[in-house]
């Protein structure tokens, strides 16, 4: 039996205190059983964060296990701080995506900034140098009174942090939808590169090895922050109980990146992990847990930003820019020297033990003494009931209450609609060039990065499709994976692996759990079909305000690889006279489309998706790129084919246009503005058409027009417009609605 004593003046620990900490009666009883006594107040805090949804994945673990995690290219699967794949020539790409939704709603600039900081630490803790970031953003309706403030804060924070640490933000997505009015989503992705032999682990080893603390001092930041906020619904009352907001310090992060990567090279590090949610507690117990060992911490040695923090506060603080390192015994001084070079101080605050216990000492006494396993593997696991809502959510809009607009007007409105218009005002605030790897930055389909000293390269994109997921959480998840993979294949890269952030409402409600389970199934099925294992990810539940959940939003990032990055394909037309060709897996529909949303018409149900045909499309794009058959390729997404054609003309320098033959009845909305099934617009010399047909067979490959020297876009007989005019609509829409930036 363990001994840990309460501190004088500490609150009493009982069932009520446990409930206030978000623990259930059964969970509290389990804690008493594990310890053989009533926990101390400090221990109660520790259990509450480690057993929170955020840290324990207690509602999702069972389902996440069904995802395909293995593949020939997988070097590190889920379980470590981030996953890693082999990308050739001895390089591995390490990547992950994470949510920072609630903190960003409360304090948009710092919330988003610290979200970027957190995901970067997950990457360099693996021994990889972060080389690219992406951001997936969901805001409320564009005219909602808080939206403008939130956009400015979130985008400012992402840029403010990413730009200052020197990691380019190369792609992302932004969506506006009233479903996020009270609960925005900020999902941050980061990718790093490492030599395979330099990969680090967060698995503690070596009884007696010292535990080092590096980085910013500990303050009262975010205590019961991320973990509890992310585990409890949001309402007006919680605004008042706000914990101390975390403030990001990107300069310290930059020092940590350089110092940690240099320290790793010494070989004196046995294990390393960032202090993320539940800070010192989770990092120390997780490292010990993975290694099957114990750890003892001396809290009096933890560097503090202000005096008189209690052990509870020290252990639960979520102060940013802190790392925990298990050093090889006797090599502390070597590590300290590296950190001094970067003006950081490494402090020994404890040691690895062999007794499998997680123990914390403070002012001569033991304040927590818990079996490590109880905090990690033995955390509760739930199989929550899942059931579809009583009524199928298909027709949420009044069917054809409004007459469909005249097609040319619809085109102009779509080009300027908040979910289609240019995202330049957002990505212009991000340094997308630093590190000199960005072959294609934001603005095209997927971002393209080269790997210096090699012919190889990477492509990345993050996507989500909450409208489709709201109609059918299973098909919606599949459609999302298809879109992200298609974006990657459009630039010519082979989709290689997936990371995901699953944003849903309260899992204690069966219909939300059902959305989640169906989403995971869709993700799993498509990942298997594309041979793109899911190597890392994050679950964000409780995205609700006053009982209203966000639309189910699995955010999917796909990373692809190039054997030869010089074969990458741009999304814009490049030569007059080239054939414009539509390649698609099935006819489009208005279901879950921007057109249906904008003009409030009934879009109907989602059609089933044939993953074999989807795979054919991806493989075909990659093969076309490798054989240099295409001069451009652009994915059809929001706004359908008509919008995709316009976007393919928007290249500032060349000033080309296109003439597209009537593809259907003139102005037929399904044909021109439909979405749904996968479609790609490619341009190619006419003589390549046969080869392209052969590659994509049996998919529909249909020449629809020509690239034109005159900068006009002509669509059938119903649309004929100057490209510059269209482009102005496209570029000025968001600045016009959200406040111009120059």
């Amino acid at each position, binding site marked *: 039996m363990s001994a840990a004593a309460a501190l004088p003046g500490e609150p009493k620990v009982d069932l009520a205190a446990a409930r206030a900490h978000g623990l259930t009666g059964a969970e509290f009883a389990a804690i008493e059983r594990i310890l053989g006594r009533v926990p101390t107040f400090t221990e109660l805090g520790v259990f509450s964060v480690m057993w929170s949804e955020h840290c324990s994945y207690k509602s999702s673990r069972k389902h996440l296990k069904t995802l395909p995690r293995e593949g020939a290219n997988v070097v590190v699967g889920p379980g470590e701080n981030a996953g890693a794949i082999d990308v050739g020539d001895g390089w591995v790409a390490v990547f992950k995506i994470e949510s920072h939704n609630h903190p960003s709603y*409360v304090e948009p600039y710092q919330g988003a900034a610290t979200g970027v900081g957190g995901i970067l630490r997950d990457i360099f803790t693996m021994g990889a140098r972060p080389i690219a970031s992406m951001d997936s953003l969901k805001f409320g309706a564009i005219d909602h009174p808080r939206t403008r403030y939130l956009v400015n804060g979130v985008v400012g924070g992402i840029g403010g942090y990413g730009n200052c640490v020197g990691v380019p933000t190369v792609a992302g997505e932004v969506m506006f939808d009233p479903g996020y009015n009270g609960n925005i989503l900020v999902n941050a992705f980061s990718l790093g590169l490492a030599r395979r032999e330099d990969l680090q682990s967060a698995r503690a080893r070596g009884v007696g090895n010292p535990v080092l603390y590096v980085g*910013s001092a500990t303050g009262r930041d975010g205590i019961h922050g991320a973990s509890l906020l992310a585990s409890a619904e949001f309402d007006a009352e919680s605004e008042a109980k706000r914990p101390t907001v975390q403030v990001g*310090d990107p*300069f310290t992060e930059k020092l940590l990146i350089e110092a940690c990567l240099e320290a790793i090279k010494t070989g004196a590090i046995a294990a390393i992990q960032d202090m993320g949610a539940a800070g010192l507690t989770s990092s120390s117990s997780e490292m010990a847990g993975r290694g099957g060992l114990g750890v003892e911490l001396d809290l009096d040695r933890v560097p503090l930003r202000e005096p008189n923090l209690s052990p509870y506060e020290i252990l639960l603080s979520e102060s940013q820019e802190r790392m925990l390192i298990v050093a090889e015994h006797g090599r502390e001084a070597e590590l300290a020297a590296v950190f001094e070079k970067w*003006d950081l101080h490494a402090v020994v605050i404890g040691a690895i033990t062999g007794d499998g216990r997680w123990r914390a000492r403070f002012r001569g006494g033991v304040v927590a003494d818990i079996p490590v396993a109880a905090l990690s593997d033995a955390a509760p696991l739930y199989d929550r009931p899942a059931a579809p809502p009583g009524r199928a959510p298909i027709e949420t809009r009044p069917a054809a209450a409004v007459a469909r607009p005249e097609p040319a007007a619809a085109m102009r409105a779509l080009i300027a609609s908040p979910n289609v218009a240019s995202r330049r005002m957002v990505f212009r605030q991000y340094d997308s060039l630093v590190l000199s790897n960005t072959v294609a930055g934001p603005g095209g389909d997927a971002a393209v990065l080269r790997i210096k000293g090699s012919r190889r390269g990477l492509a990345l994109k993050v996507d989500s499709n909450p409208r489709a997921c709201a109609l059918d959480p299973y098909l919606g998840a599949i459609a999302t994976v298809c879109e992200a993979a298609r974006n990657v294949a459009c630039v010519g890269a082979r989709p290689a692996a997936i990371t995901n952030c699953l944003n849903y409402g309260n899992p204690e409600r069966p219909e939300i759990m059902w959305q989640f389970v169906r989403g995971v199934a869709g993700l799993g099925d498509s990942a298997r079909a594309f041979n793109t294992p899911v190597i890392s990810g994050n679950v964000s539940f409780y995205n609700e305000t006053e009982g209203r959940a966000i639309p189910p939003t699995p955010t999917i990032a796909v990373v692809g690889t190039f054997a030869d990055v010089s074969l990458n394909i741009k999304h814009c037309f490049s030569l007059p006279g080239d054939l414009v060709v539509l390649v698609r897996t099935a006819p489009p529909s208005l279901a879950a489309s921007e057109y249906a949303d904008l003009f409030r018409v009934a879009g109907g149900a989602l059609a089933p998706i044939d993953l074999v045909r989807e795979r054919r499309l991806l493989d075909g794009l990659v093969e076309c790129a490798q054989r240099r058959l295409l001069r451009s390729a652009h994915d059809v997404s929001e706004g359908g084919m008509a919008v995709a054609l316009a976007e393919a003309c928007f290249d500032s320098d060349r000033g080309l246009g296109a003439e597209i033959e009537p593809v259907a009845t003139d102005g037929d909305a399904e044909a021109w503005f439909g979405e749904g099934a996968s479609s790609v617009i490619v341009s190619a010399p006419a003589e390549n058409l046969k080869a392209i047909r052969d590659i994509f067979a049996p998919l529909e490959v249909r020449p629809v027009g020509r690239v034109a020297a005159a900068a006009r876009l002509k669509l059938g007989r119903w649309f004929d417009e100057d490209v510059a005019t269209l482009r102005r609509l496209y570029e000025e829409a968001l600045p016009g609605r959200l406040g111009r930036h120059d």
Partner: protein
Amino acid sequence: MRAKVFVTPRKGILDPQGRAVEGALKSLGFGAIGNVRVGRFITLEIDAPSRAEAESAVRQICERLLANPNIEDFRFEVDAE
């Protein structure tokens, strides 16, 4: 009337600017300096029938725009001139 507004990082909140300045001063040899906090100083002119009304307007402005209540405190002075 003229108003001066002082916005400071709230106690307990990390102040990376203050830390950076403190570090720089130390390395410049100003060792006897500590607890540096960096905030904003805003001056403005305001037309109001009375000082009390000016004060109430400035307070509102601080709350709504000049200070971020999540991380900052503010104080202000209004002088008739």
